[in-house]
């Protein structure tokens, strides 16, 4: 179960609507690589009130 992210502007729960596999670009990011997928899963969340979009590495939310 993913944690919900609240909008920084509206403080309402954002909607998690997309994931993208990205490559690590520095050694500190290696810990977030999903060994089965071969990269880091970046999550994208949008606010239903103001439309603000934010992204976060999935390893930091689960």
């Amino acid at each position, binding site marked *: 179960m993913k944690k919900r992210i609240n909008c920084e502007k509206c403080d309402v729960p954002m*909607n*998690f*609507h*997309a*994931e*993208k596999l990205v490559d690590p670009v520095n050694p500190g990011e290696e810990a977030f690589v999903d060994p089965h997928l071969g990269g880091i899963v*970046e999550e*994208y969340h*949008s*606010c*239903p*009130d*103001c*439309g*603000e*979009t*934010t*992204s976060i590495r999935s390893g930091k939310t689960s």
Partner: protein
Amino acid sequence: MGETRPLYIPVLLGTTRKGRSSLHVAQLMAHEVAKRAGVETEMIDIARLPLPTDDAGEAIKDAGYSERMNRADALVIVSPEYNHGYPGLLKHVLDSCLKEYVHKAVGLVGVSAGPFGGTRGIQGLLPVMRELGLVNIFWDVNFSSAHKAFDENGKLLDGAYLKRIDKFLAELIWMAKTLRYGRENIGLE
């Protein structure tokens, strides 16, 4: 909620070249977008974005451009075709953001001095749009012999383009509304 917010659909002028015919095209597109009810727009000229060329990607993100892309529900990209490709500086600008684009609509407008209306440049842009998370529409607009399509003041000389622009914008606005609803209300399973 989201239904009350106007759509924001900026027009990106994708070339910095002096004497660019694409300027007239981008101005026309912004003028036509602005006529649509419930839609706000502006032209973003990449020549006016202060992006350095000694680095690239999100490291050189411009706050103003990022804010506009974050606010955008869709994007119209006006791209000339240079040597069968789209301009390198357009890619440089596009690459400076990512999360701002994801699951938003994009419509492509090709411009060329020759007879093919920038179609080869558009074909090169399509895989880039996908990788940036942008959702392309069916309709394109193609300006062939662009230097003959406008007078020296930027007035469109061939009204036939307007019908195609109507079709293009109708689909783009539909896609923008649909994707906004999805981004803000439909969760990824």
